[in-house]
């Protein structure tokens, strides 16, 4: 789950990491009021949960509170990457001497957290990593030890600081690690950390993505995740999430549902190979219950964009008889005329097949054929 910049900064502030003085505003008037409490010049930043908002007009500067109001009015009226801007963050603009990067994320192959620091912050860190990898300092974090003060000092040294500046910077690094652990961060970064012309270090932008699987430890955010206007999710995605299902909206017309991310991806790939266009990715996961199957099909059948629905279930934990019952219930509930292509094999396969066949629904046992049939239907073949 992505946090908004202002949420991440609130956490940084609690951990006493210096951030620019700033406040949130949800209306142009409030934006002006806020800036009256701050010192000019100002930065106005759209609070949206996408990367690259700067290029999309989501970061602007202003000299006076009236300017702030005008800029905010404009910004609160736009969409950035199809997400509405519901709030802006107004903060004091710093005098920049240097921009640094520090972040912590997961290194899958080392099975651990990894800390990343660079003296070339303020731009896309992945670009720096690709073009000038020598400017990126990495440190694998030993799971038993964690990221200690001396690790933080080593990294501050490696990006060129010593003496008191090194100590100050290393404390910021170390605190960010503490936040990462406390908030189960999948990714946390301060980009840039600004070294001001007065020699202060300030975290000017902050990103924090909480591991979804750990949200049960962070109920305040779990709750916020599904609030409309406070999320990067579409309405359908929220609906799926509430039902405990993994749904991603795509732009085709073939609704696809399966169990297991790999199988669903392979189904998408198969549909593509037959020149069809998936409307979505929909993984009901392992051990889906009858009611989850009903919710999932309900979402797909009621989606006006789908012309046909392809169900691809290979049961392990998921039991085919539950799936079959779910399909029947969903069809009853939605009363949809949309064609369904069903492929069903695995645990309790015979029982599942029997349930569906008894009511006249044809069940396939080959995925590739099912994909082809769905594409044929969608193309009117």
């Amino acid at each position, binding site marked *: 789950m992505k946090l908004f910049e202002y949420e991440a900064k609130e956490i940084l502030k609690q951990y006493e990491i210096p951030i620019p003085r700033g406040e949130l505003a949800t209306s142009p008037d409030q934006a002006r009021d806020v800036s009256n409490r701050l010192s000019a010049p100002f930065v106005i930043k759209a609070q949206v949960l996408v990367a690259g908002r700067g290029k999309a007009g989501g970061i602007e500067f202003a000299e006076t509170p009236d300017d702030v109001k005008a800029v905010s009015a404009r910004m609160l009226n736009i969409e950035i990457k199809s997400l509405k801007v519901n709030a802006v963050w107004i903060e004091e603009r710093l005098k920049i001497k240097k921009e640094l990067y520090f972040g912590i994320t997961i290194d899958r192959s080392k099975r651990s957290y990894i800390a990343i620091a660079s003296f070339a912050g303020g731009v896309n860190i992945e670009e720096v990593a690709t073009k000038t990898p020598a400017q990126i300092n990495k440190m694998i974090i030993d799971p038993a030890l964690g990221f200690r003060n001396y690790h933080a000092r080593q990294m501050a040294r490696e990006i060129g600081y010593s003496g008191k500046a090194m100590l100050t910077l290393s404390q910021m690094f170390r605190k960010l690690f503490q936040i990462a652990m406390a908030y189960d961060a999948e990714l946390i970064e301060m980009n840039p950390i600004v070294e001001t012309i007065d020699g202060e270090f300030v975290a000017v932008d902050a990103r924090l993505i909480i591991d979804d699987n750990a949200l049960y430890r962070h109920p305040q955010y779990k709750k916020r995740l599904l609030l409309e206007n406070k999320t990067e999710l579409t309405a359908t995605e929220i609906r799926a999430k509430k039902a405990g299902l993994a749904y991603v909206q795509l732009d085709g017309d073939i609704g696809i549902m399966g169990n297991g991310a790999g199988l669903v*991806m392979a189904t998408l790939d198969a549909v593509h190979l037959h020149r069809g266009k998936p409307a979505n990715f929909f*993984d009901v996961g392992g051990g889906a219950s009858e009611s989850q199957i009903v919710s999932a099909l309900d979402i797909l059948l009621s989606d006006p964009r789908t012309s046909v629905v392809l169900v691809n279930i290979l049961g392990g934990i998921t039991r085919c008889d539950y799936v079959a019952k779910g399909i029947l219930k969903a069809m009853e509930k939605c009363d949809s005329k949309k064609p369904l292509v069903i492929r069903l094999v695995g645990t309790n396969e015979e029982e599942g097949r029997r349930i569906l066949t008894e009511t006249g629904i044809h069940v396939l046992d080959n995925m590739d054929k099912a994909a082809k049939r769905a594409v044929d239907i969608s193309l009117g073949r």
Partner: protein
Amino acid sequence: MGIIVNANTRAIVQGITGTQGRFHTKLMLNYGTNIVAGVTPGRGGMKIHSIPVYDTVKEAAQRHEANASIIFVPAPFAEEATFEALDANIRTIVIITEHIPIRDSIQIMAHAKDNKAIIIGPNTPGIITPGECKLGIMPAQIFHQGTVGIASRSGTLTYEIADGLTKNGLGQSTCLGLGGDPIVGLNFVEALKMFEKDRKTKAIALIGEIGGNAEEQAAEYIANKKPAKKIVAYVAGRTAPPGKRMGHAGAIVLGKSGTAEHKIRAFENVGVKVARKPCDIAKILAKDF
């Protein structure tokens, strides 16, 4: 023989009294897996399908000389359960549980490494050596004894492919789900090494997906070690839009090394044939047998 599990495996089930634990214990017993005991703290003394249940892994492992464990406990307790198994000297652990926080998985893997233990998963369907031992939740009827070793990052996709192999007369030596999470125990390289040593395995199928760089590492290993056995691969997610989450965090597209194209190219560059569709795996392998 196959790898990791076989007729000599004596397994305990952690979380045996839960719905899934109970259900799959039955299926594993039906398959002939030697399930020697179950563990649920606070439920010691009861029996599930005639299998004795203990309060602690220590008791279960000691009394029944267990050498493997399969874990079904809910995600918030999975770290503890794995540690308990490791401390009881169990060195083969299959973690079926999904949705384990990454922070916990990192600790699990570090502690397992210190103890030189094999972790399969988490978020895996488990492992099966057909005809000998099934330690997992895969539908058993799909698998048949044979000579193809399968290592897969995906659950159901593995069944898909094993099913295809079986229907084409190609049985499996061992079929192994590595787990769909960003942090998992056994990876492609380690599985490859084991399959190479296993006499029964004649060919190896690697089933990858977008996210991470496990496939690229496998390709590098193959380039360096030039294994003698035939290797074929499939990578799911060619058409996955970059940056979108594909169901589980393991499938986030991270830079170029996370894309299906990159992985496919990495395999092809080192001479590994990559199937376009899951069913092509069987076709490619069938040519050689």
